[in-house]
């Protein structure tokens, strides 16, 4: 197991290096480049040259790349033009909110998606199947931010069941221990804060869960339908095993393998969705920050965000790989 972790970590190095080269080229070599990005379109040539010198852009490419790489390794992603703080610090400060939202959304998607997909497959062609399949097709086609607006309009503004923005009501503050509002409340004993945080989480999490939920339902359904026809399920049936054992041990255990991979891949789209969802609900995570950075043309934040996301994403993929090797013995061996 440890050897596998080490090997996977080593395999990450070329990927990360490749990514850094891409980002570097993209940042520095695209038409316009950072100078025009900083100065805008009315920049004079002298200004551009000055900026280029100041940024070291007049030096050879590989020197620039070396410096770029050094900064990235030191987690120096530059300074936000909005707040004047280091970009990395801004991300670390806001990351827990986004993680909290993403985890909640993924929990909803998995907890609802797998049973729904399974039942849809078992009653193929029944009303549940038809509803689940058409629902998930529609779910994929609804723009996330519109769903957010809709849920907010109906359940928060219209019916007043949930708060319409933020992570906590004003006056409550449990931030401190971990940065996760729900957890902090539990840790410090402020259960009212935990409850408040949960209530704030419901609408954004449901919104964000929509696409992963749709994908998981469809994947689980397709996967179960395929596994049900496998020879080993017939073998299990031929042994006269209880229905429950056949379903859980022989069907689900195999059918969920591709779903696990999908959950990992979906985390990427979750982060995209988080930007949109957070900005509708002013959730105060990285997503909201990115939204304001776009409006403020805060380039260090936007570019740093891509790098940050890439790192997070690579790590998540590593975790998924390891999880996969735990549940699929065929991967474990070699």
């Amino acid at each position, binding site marked *: 197991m440890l050897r596998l972790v080490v090997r996977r970590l080593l395999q990450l190095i070329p990927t990360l290096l490749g990514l850094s080269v891409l980002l570097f080229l993209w940042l520095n070599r695209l038409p316009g480049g950072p100078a025009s990005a900083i100065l805008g379109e009315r920049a004079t040539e002298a200004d551009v040259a000055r900026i280029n010198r100041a940024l070291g852009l007049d030096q050879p490419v590989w020197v620039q790349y070396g410096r770029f790489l050094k900064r990235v390794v030191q987690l120096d992603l530059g300074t936000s033009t909005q707040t004047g703080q280091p970009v990395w610090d801004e991300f670390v400060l806001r990351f827990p909110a986004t993680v909290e939202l993403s985890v909640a959304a993924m929990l909803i998607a998995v907890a609802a998606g797998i049973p729904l997909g399974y039942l849809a497959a078992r009653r193929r062609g029944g009303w549940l199947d038809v509803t689940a399949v058409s629902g998930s097709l529609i779910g994929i086609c609804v723009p996330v931010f519109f769903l957010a607006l809709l849920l907010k309009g109906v359940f928060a503004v219209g019916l007043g069941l949930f708060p319409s923005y933020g992570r906590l009501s004003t006056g409550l503050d449990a931030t401190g221990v971990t940065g996760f509002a729900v957890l902090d409340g539990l840790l410090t004993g402020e259960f009212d804060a935990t409850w408040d945080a949960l209530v704030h989480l419901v609408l954004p999490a449901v919104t964000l869960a929509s696409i992963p939920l749709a994908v998981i339902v469809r994947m689980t359904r397709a996967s179960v339908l395929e596994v049900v026809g496998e*020879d080993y399920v017939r073998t299990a049936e031929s*042994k006269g*095993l209880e229905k429950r054992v056949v379903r859980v*041990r*022989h069907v689900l*255990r*195999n059918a969920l*393998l591709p779903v696990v991979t999908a959950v990992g891949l979906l985390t990427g789209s979750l982060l995209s969705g988080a930007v949109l969802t957070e900005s509708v609900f002013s959730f105060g995570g990285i997503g909201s920050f990115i939204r304001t950075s776009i409006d403020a043309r805060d380039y260090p934040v936007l570019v740093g965000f891509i790098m940050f996301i890439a790192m997070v994403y690579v790590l998540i993929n590593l975790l998924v790989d390891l999880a996969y090797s735990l549940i*699929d013995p065929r991967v474990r*061996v070699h």
Partner: protein
Amino acid sequence: MPLLSVDELTVTFGGRDRRPSTAVDGVSFTVGQGQVVGLVGESGCGKSVTSLALMGLLPAKGVTVGGRADFDGTDLLTLSPARMRDLRGRELAMIFQDPLSSLNPVVPIGLQVTEILRRHRGLKGEPARKEAAQLLDRVGIPDPGRRLKEYPHQLSGGMRQRALIAMAVACAPRLLIADEPTTALDVTIQAQILELLRELVDQEGTALLMITHDLGVVAGLCDQVNVLYAGKAVETAGRRELFGHPTHPYAHGLLGSIPRLDAPRGEPLHPIRGSINDKIAWADGCAFAPRCDHYTLECLTGTPELTEPRAAGHRVRCVNPVLPAVPPTAEVPA
């Protein structure tokens, strides 16, 4: 009274929007205690469907099963799914063709053996594990203690088939159905597996229904042989009788198409022309007629009856049987 007596078994596939097709068309045969009975034919002749119908493993939807299958006084075809589940694995067991795909890839061999012991014999924990090790040992798997912890992909092909056999005989069933158990294996391994089956039958008095297209397997193992063509039995006889005097042109052709070491050098083989897709409906005449060298107009006037043109108990469904006294000719005079 035979252990299993199948009478006019008919299996028809076809749903709402598909043209019904009859895979098994009134097949009757018996299997006695301790007897090895072969069902022989090309792929698509209905032999595997017959075995699945007996095991109650055909899908519930889109399949119509008719006829009777008396197993020790109970009709397997009308038994409730729950009763059938109790019988499967305990009274009737089945061995499948492809040992790799027939074993669950993500469940250790040990659990796949003990789950059937737990289901039908109430064995759990250590006693179940011990019994499983003994079973593996009995089917000739060396070092069973270690193998129990391994996964199917870690075993060789022959070993996997032995493991499947261990599961099938775990509860000492009275009838064992083997569906082409050696097709996916190397020739040397094939012989070992057949040897093992022979031993089990001799020691336990288990009845064995052997489904195969391999006449070598039939010659080595079966007491009684049923030759199937396009869903109907075309010839039924004891092994010696059938190999000595194949009487249906199809069985005759099957035996004639086997290469023989004692045949004179340069003697051409006599393959049966065409494929099983070149057939006519049994209702219109003999399904084999399009491929038959002996067919006459008479063969095309309704289903031929089973008769005993040669010897008692040697039943043949043909109006122009291959009889030694009258050499077969292409034309029967009008």
